[in-house]
């Protein structure tokens, strides 16, 4: 059996070399891989740098104490440089440890990552099966050779070898429930917006929004867990915290299939389950009846991606929603007593100073009408790799002001067009900040 240390780096632009912590979401991908490895008898530990001390000495004390033979690092676009520096530091101190990279950025740029001299293997896409098969090749009676492991990239005599890519996992129910006990005590409660426990019920998104990389990362085929299993998991998570924490369904869009959501609600009613939960949704999948049914069954917060206050822009970014519908769904949700979390972005390729003004006005209007029950989140449009807008940025007239991935944090303007520049976006953000701050404070 192998000893494996999985390290979840910062999501943000913070660095493992500096002391500090951030509050963000559970590293569910890392935890899912860790759970799968434990199921197969391997000894696994997880170091989540978002909460555990990130001091270099702490990381290396952990490595020294646990003595893993394999260390897995997950990387997002904004932290890839930091992750590669960590890989280097690990290899310098522990040259015999195998370093495996995975995660969203690695999936999009596997060749760039494997070419790094301090990286031994790269896992592309969903990591549960490939990581397990990889570490089993280090066992005496390995069922597969390195060349047989799908979605794996590695070096052989300094040449890059890319194995075939595995299909996306079709049945998400064949894994044990993600084990949160790998996290340190503080991390077991997620305090991103309020104390919450995360549950994932699907992978992928049927949407075609040009700013989102879900299609490239999780497949455009939307895959769901059986809703009975989801309900049971939520019952257990609720028991784990004596019903005191909100359960946050972390899917890109929980409400894609209305019938599935209604089945979930029926189980809550049938068993009299007392729990509070929240989810992310799209306005085009909501009805007034569904919103009220969700509220009656403990839903306390729904996040809707609105993205712009201009219909022209919504059409241009293939959001496939109408502002009329947005206003309706916001009203229904407010009337149902559910807290609204509305997210917007400034600086779409088709934005102009006028459409940015429309978005600012829309935000002010929503705040004036529903401010006491609304959490408004505004970020800068960021062309992440894997998105349509990144791949087609020249055609769209979108210019990156910097090629630095570590600036892609959503909190820094990184693109401009002939119609707006960095300063315009910063000024627009200053204008909406009083509403985003005020609305957040209202919920605390």
């Amino acid at each position, binding site marked *: 059996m192998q000893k494996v240390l999985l390290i979840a780096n910062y999501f943000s632009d913070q660095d493992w070399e500096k002391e500090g912590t951030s509050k963000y979401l559970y590293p569910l991908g890392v935890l899912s891989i860790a759970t799968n490895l434990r199921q197969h008898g391997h000894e696994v530990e997880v170091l989540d740098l978002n909460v555990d001390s990130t001091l270099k000495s702490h990381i290396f004390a952990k490595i020294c104490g646990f003595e893993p033979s394999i260390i897995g690092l997950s990387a997002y676009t904004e932290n890839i440089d930091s992750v590669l520096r960590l890989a280097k530091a690990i290899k310098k101190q522990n040259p015999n440890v195998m370093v495996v990279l995975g995660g969203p950025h690695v999936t999009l740029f596997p060749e760039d990552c494997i070419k790094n001299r301090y990286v031994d293997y790269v896992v592309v896409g969903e990591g549960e099966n490939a990581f397990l098969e990889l570490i089993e090749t280090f066992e005496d009676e390995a069922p597969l050779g390195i060349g047989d492991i799908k979605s794996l990239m590695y070096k052989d005599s300094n040449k890059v070898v890319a194995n075939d890519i595995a299909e996306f996992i079709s049945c998400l129910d064949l894994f044990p*429930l993600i084990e949160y006990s790998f996290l340190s005590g503080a991390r077991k409660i997620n305090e991103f917006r309020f104390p919450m426990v995360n549950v994932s019920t699907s992978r992928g998104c049927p949407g075609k929004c040009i700013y989102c990389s879900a299609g490239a990362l999780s497949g455009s085929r939307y895959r769901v867990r059986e809703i009975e299993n989801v309900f049971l998991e939520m019952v257990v998570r609720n028991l784990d915290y004596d019903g005191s924490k909100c359960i946050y369904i972390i899917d890109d869009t929980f409400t894609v299939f209305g019938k599935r959501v209604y089945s979930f609600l029926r189980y809550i009613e049938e068993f009299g389950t007392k729990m509070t939960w929240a989810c992310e949704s799209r306005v085009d999948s909501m009805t007034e009846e569904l919103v009220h049914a969700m509220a009656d069954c403990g839903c306390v917060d729904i996040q809707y991606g609105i993205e712009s206050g201009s219909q022209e822009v919504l059409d241009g970014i293939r959001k496939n929603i109408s502002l009329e519908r947005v206003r309706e769904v916001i009203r229904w949700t407010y009337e149902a007593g559910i807290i609204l979390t509305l997210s917007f972005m400034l600086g779409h390729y088709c934005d102009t100073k006028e459409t940015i003004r429309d978005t600012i006005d829309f935000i002010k209007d929503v705040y004036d009408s529903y401010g006491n029950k609304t959490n408004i989140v505004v970020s800068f449009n960021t062309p992440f790799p894997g998105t349509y807008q990144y791949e087609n940025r020249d055609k769209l007239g979108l210019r990156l002001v910097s090629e630095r991935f570590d600036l892609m944090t959503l909190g820094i303007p990184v693109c401009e067009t002939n119609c707006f520049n960095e300063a315009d976006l910063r000024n627009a953000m200053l204008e909406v900040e009083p509403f985003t701050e005020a609305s957040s404070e209202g919920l605390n």
Partner: protein
Amino acid sequence: MIKRVVVRTLHGLSYVGEFIRVDEEKLVLRPSKKSEILFILNIESIDFVVLANGRTIKCEFGKDICEAISLLEEIG
């Protein structure tokens, strides 16, 4: 419903699925309606079972597993 349960093992893993049967000291769960793959768990390794109504039955080392199953029949 759904004769579904969550089974927590002493190894610190939780499995969710439809209860199929107990035989030869093994608890058999089907994780998905369409799945031909089954979870087969040693009864000795079960810590507790959680039913859909939130009832938790401590079954450490296989003890009281029958109680858990009979309750499941009732709510099923």
